[in-house]
């Protein structure tokens, strides 16, 4: 399962909550971070996860996919002759190509996710997983990351890279096995972007968008009738109680505006929308995440 969406919408949190849920249900699950954010280690108070499959709690693993490490592993797995590998790793040309070729880092990252999801792992004596969750990088512009294999297959046309890219593209677009979840926020721009992201992912990349998570939905603590009462009381009160009423009105208005965005999101997207509550917590760590785990499907 690929968890995607714009920056700052809470992808990592949702990915981790989904992982915790699956693990609790007895599925051997791994959550993959990219771009060395190490948010998972933060949530679980670990030094760092790194490029190794690390157990967080029963059935729940995490890995931070570093493209350089993933590239190294790919070469190790595809070139069996040691002398050749050594020559390659020492070569300036290879270092240059690996660093400069656009999209290669994304490609090997997806490649590692694919390897983790194999029934017969390529990494020696590694066990297979029931579920692999990818906390995808923020979609800056459109669908870039998930489209990398397709772009590579087009550019390379023939040869081992083209074959590998084609394999990865088939893996991502296999609707039975791979699903995408988009995380969104209940605000106007993010809702519009989610709709166009869903469209691009479905039409251009041809992946299955199974689920949309609307994150950070305020609780609706006040009714329209409450608002009237609050509005009337606002002018009569002074000092801190007046601030408290103003805060209640602000939260109430925002909660209502968010529900309008929710309705709009549901009307302009095809995948089912699941709402996740705004957590009034200073920082989200494993404990707080359990509140989300309770509500994710």
């Amino acid at each position, binding site marked *: 399962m690929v968890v995607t969406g*714009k*920056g700052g919408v809470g992808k990592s949190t949702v990915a981790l909550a989904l992982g915790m849920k699956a693990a609790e249900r007895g599925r051997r699950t791994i959550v993959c971070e990219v771009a060395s954010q190490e948010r998972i280690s933060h949530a679980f108070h670990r030094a760092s996860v790194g490029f190794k499959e690390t157990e967080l709690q029963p059935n729940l693993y995490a890995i931070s996919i570093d493209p350089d490490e993933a590239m190294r592993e790919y070469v190790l797995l595809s070139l069996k002759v040691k002398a050749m590998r050594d020559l390659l790793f020492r070569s300036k*040309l290879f270092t240059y190509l690996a660093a400069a070729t656009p999209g290669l880092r994304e490609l090997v990252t997806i490649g590692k996710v694919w390897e983790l999801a194999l029934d017969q792992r390529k990494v020696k004596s590694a066990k297979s997983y029931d579920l692999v969750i990818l906390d995808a990088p*923020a979609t800056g512009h459109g669908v870039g990351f998930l489209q990398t294999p397709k772009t590579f297959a087009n550019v390379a046309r023939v040869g081992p890279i083209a074959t590998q890219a084609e394999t990865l593209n088939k893996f991502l677009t296999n609707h039975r096995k791979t699903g995408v979840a988009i995380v969104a926020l209940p605000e106007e721009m993010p809702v519009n972007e989610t709709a166009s992201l869903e469209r691009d992912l479905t039409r251009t990349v041809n992946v299955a968008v199974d689920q949309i998570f609307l994150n950070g939905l305020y609780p609706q603590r006040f009714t329209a009738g409450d608002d009237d009462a609050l509005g009337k009381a606002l002018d*009569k*009160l002074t000092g801190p109680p007046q601030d408290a009423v103003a805060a209640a009105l602000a939260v109430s208005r925002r909660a209502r505006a968010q529900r309008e965005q929710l309705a709009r999101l549901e009307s302009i997207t095809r995948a089912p929308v699941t709402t996740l509550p705004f957590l009034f917590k200073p920082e989200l760590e494993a404990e707080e995440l359990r509140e989300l785990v309770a509500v994710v499907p």
Partner: protein
Amino acid sequence: MTSVADLVRDKRILICAGPGGVGKTTTSAAIAAGMAARGLKVAVLTIDPAKRLADSLGLPELGNVERQVDPMLFTKAGVDPGGGELWAMMLDSKATFDDVVAKNAPDEETRDAVLSNRIYKELSSALAGSQEYMAMEKLYEIWSEDRYDLLVLDTPPSRNALDFLEAPNRLLQFIEGRSLQVFLAPTGFAAKVAGRGTSVMFSILRRITGVDLLQDLSEFFGAFSGMVGGFRERATKVNELLADEHSTFVVVCGPQSETIAEASYFRDKLAEQKLPFGGAIVNKVHRAGRELPDDGGDTLRKALGEELGDRVVANYEDYHLLAERDRQNIERLATELGTDVIIEVPYLDDDVHDLVGLMEVNRHLFGPDALRVKTE
């Protein structure tokens, strides 16, 4: 200092950088509108504005040329900009890239060879870094024309703020692959000089990549080789412009600890590259009002009834929790950045989608210098 007006005093270029999803575009547009309202001729180069905001300012999609925002909109928003003008442009990075190629190509043949190269076509829009490079390219171009008092650049929605600084160099390194070209096309003299080691290397690489890809790459670098000098020269000039005393960077972030951490990292990188740092703008800050005294709950219950009063109290407690977190994070940010130039914009109740909304944001961005807006 708590006003953007101080931040951009004597500046001609303001670059708003920051992680995605923190409201960079709105902030850039608001600053540009605010300075135009103060009588300057301002252009904002933006990447991805909300459609409603773009529509309300009369901007068609992906123009790649600046358009003036109708002065009547200022009047309607209750502002008299005097001689000020607001211009805005949405960046089309593919079109800019094509322009740059056309400008740098020594002849038509080279230009067509690059523009029709398969790798170029795949990469010019998808290539990580091309958007950042093109944003700077366009900035330089408009600055050279010397038509504005102030340019505000809204940076591309990168995964993190740093991408904006690093991506152009990565792109340059890639197209500058002159040494690589020798390896990729080991024929004639080059092959003789490079000798056997290279051909072994070549055959190993071929096993990994496939020969076709190497050929396309070779053509790509071949076509680009005549232009690399022009690209490099331009990049140097752009860097000089960014490091100039008339330029300044602000980092736009949110009050959460992750984006705060990113902001201080960004500041370090700016210092490393000797680029000027102006300050930070923190958006969506939860601001608590005064704390309820012991009898505050009773006052509220009396005024609103038991049940509603309790809910208001509970809500206020939650709100305070977030406000307290934000306050601590912002304090940490000030310490880490070593600056007192931190401008806070509270979490606003409404989305910003027109000039009136931008002026409302400006009440916070410009703080004590905010213009009095006459609205009926």
